[in-house]
């Protein structure tokens, strides 16, 4: 018989765990963002690459520096700071000076994320909050869209002004691929973002609820209420393909810590994001409403979670009704 003595660990159940850990999830997000990044560099040139690099390095540096300063365990290995850096720079115009993403990264990582406890604890999407900070601090820089040095109006601002998008030289196919379309680095190519979205769905990083509810709500509302003399379908398609809708719906609104975790809650949150986007686009002061819609819904995520708990196994609607009735009677 085996004579040797071994010591055995008393450990937690279950004894096996899935391979997918946090850094793998974040790596999948980075892979999902790769098509959009590649497209940005292809369309906007070397400056786009420089901006992305600066933003990522700054984000990771602030994450590392803050945790070091506060004597907290180092967390740059989970790659979430890297994702924040990429998302932040993807909402910036190519003409932004190189120091700007550094300021944005500081706000996003230190103020929005780390001050509340780091990954999983922030109640706003750090990249969007960073973008909002830059937007209000340097509005003209953040809304100047150029391609190869030529300043252009985005389809969204043309729509807002009641102009004719087709007359300005944009057709639907171009708006889908993003080729020659002015806008922020990451938002122009709906096609590249969709490819990334499919990757995230296939890897089960996100589920369909938030993006589908978000984009679906925008589609339905713009289809029902067209403006500026467009046909229902044209107006809807132009609205879907312009601005940051795909970037927002697929990559921003699905940010884990700032969105609801319950399944029905995710649907409701998607509807809310979509409705607010349309409201801001129709009645707000700015042409684009995606980022503010998401930030507002971020603030509701907690309440949505509380109000949309799923059906517990073994509990029917009748059971819930009976329980409510009993509670009422007990009160009376």
């Amino acid at each position, binding site marked *: 018989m085996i004579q040797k003595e071994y010591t055995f*660990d008393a*450990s937690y159940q279950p004894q*096996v765990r*899935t391979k997918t850990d946090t850094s793998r*999830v974040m790596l999948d997000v980075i892979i999902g963002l790769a098509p959009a990044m590649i497209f940005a560099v292809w369309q906007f040139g070397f400056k786009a690459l420089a901006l992305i690099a600066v933003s990522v390095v700054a984000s990771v540096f602030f994450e590392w520096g803050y945790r070091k300063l506060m004597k907290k365990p180092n967390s740059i290995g989970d790659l979430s700071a890297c994702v924040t850096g990429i998302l932040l720079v993807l909402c910036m115009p190519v003409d932004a000076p190189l120091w700007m993403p550094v300021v944005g990264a500081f706000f996003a990582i230190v103020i929005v994320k780390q001050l509340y406890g780091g990954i999983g604890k922030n109640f706003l999407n750090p990249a969007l909050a960073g973008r909002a900070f830059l937007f209000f601090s340097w509005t003209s820089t953040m809304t100047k869209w150029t391609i190869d040095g030529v300043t252009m109006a985005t389809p969204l601002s043309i729509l807002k002004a009641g102009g004719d998008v087709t007359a300005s030289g944009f057709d639907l196919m171009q708006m889908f691929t993003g080729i020659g379309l002015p806008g922020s680095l990451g938002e122009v190519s709906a096609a590249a973002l969709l490819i990334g979205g499919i990757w995230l769905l296939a890897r089960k990083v996100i589920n369909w609820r938030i993006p589908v509810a978000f984009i679906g709500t925008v589609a339905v509302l713009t289809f029902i209420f067209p403006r500026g003399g467009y046909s229902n379908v044209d107006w809807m398609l132009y609205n879907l393909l312009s601005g940051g809708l795909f970037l927002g719906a697929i990559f921003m609104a699905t940010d884990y810590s700032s969105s609801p975790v319950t399944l029905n809650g995710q649907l409701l949150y998607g509807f809310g994001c979509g409705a607010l986007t349309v409201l801001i686009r129709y009645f707000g002061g700015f042409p684009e409403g995606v980022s503010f819609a998401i930030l507002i819904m971020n603030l509701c995520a907690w309440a949505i979670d509380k109000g949309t708990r799923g*059906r*517990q*196994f073994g509990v029917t609607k009748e059971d819930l009704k009976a329980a409510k009735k009993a509670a009422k009677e007990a009160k009376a």
Partner: protein
Amino acid sequence: MPYKFRGGVHPDYMKAPDEPVIVVTPPPQVIIPMAQHIGAPCQPLVAVGDYVTMGQKIGENPAPVSAPVHSPVSGKVVAVEPRPHPLGDMIMAVVIENDYQDTPCTDMAPLTEEELKNPEAILARLREAGIVGMGGAMFPTAFKIRGGLGKVDTLIINGAECEPYLNGDHWTMRLHPEELLKGIELARIASGLDKAYYGIEKNKMDAIELLNSKNPAQYGVEIVPEEVKYPQGAEKMQIKAITNREVKPGGLPAGVGCNVVSTQTAYAIYKACYLGIPCYERILTVGGSAINKPYNLQCRVGTPFRYIVEQCGGFVKTPKKIVLGGPMMGLIATSLDAVNIKGTAGILFFTEEEDRTVENPTCIRCGKCITVCPMGLEPVYMYMYFKKGDFENMKKYHILDCFECGSCSFNCPGRMPLTHSFKTAKLLFAAKAAEEKARAEAAAKEAEKK
């Protein structure tokens, strides 16, 4: 067509179904713990120096929820003293020196033709033969079936074997299909029903075909192939899959008219009734990266782990953990001196290779725990309130209805100790309830005095 349940996970199955079943020669000394079931532990019936035969009853307790234990070998009793139990603690055990004669005990004759059709006779035999749930729960089977009489309209045999590694049930189906069907028939007759359903996951198609080729209908059995998904083999999931009924929170299977009996239990029922052999042997899977040759062993109860490891070629790596049962719900043993018991479906020896715990588990609020919870709970919030010690909200988030399948922890990218925390929370609730009860009693006494 089986019904589907929401949630669940797909772990690496790690099954090696083609590893042959090795019949283990019993060790020179067997150690028989007096507690191999849920309920009142047995009192030893033998003393040091007694000679016992194979299958002789050596421990018993007259309490209704209990099951006698029998000697798996013939030989001399050399000690009656507390020994390491696989689930920790020292528990009273009978130690028998094996004389390798396997002299059979004649106390228990096979049931007669008539008795085999008589529910009372079968139930009496199940009790006498010490049959308990061999899937791991070890609930006395006779008590379970008797408790369901009049309430239960559906008998389900659990052949899902959804835990990774384990394939003892699969082998039981392959080696003894007819005996298994006869055992199910007996459980069905004892339950007073015309039909039993045998739910088997579709990753065991060979066994499903083999069982179907034996004309299960003549035994009143229907084979139901089920979706391959953990925890398909959990009692509640089996009931859902076969009847589409859902056990109420805090309720029992009998509450929705169902009883679930595991595969090897059905085989043990066959042996007890047709052959007069009590429950002292089972097929268990030995695996994990520390083991030289993973095998399925036909092994008698009371065999020390040390001996079992040797049958499998010893260790090739330093083992860090002993897991009893499957890796998802299995419990931990900490000593090689512990022995296998009736409910030990597998013994896994894990090294650092299987370990995916991290130094700083961090919740990223991804909600993946919610999508996989088969009970429709919100583990992310249950954990948050557990950490706060907020009992009211823990209850509101149904922490007590978690049956600890481990799916949430398994799927957690942040490696949070979810299932473990819920288990701890339940213990805290129990302690709190006991404390409150004691306080109420003390107050009542005080009031009486006045």
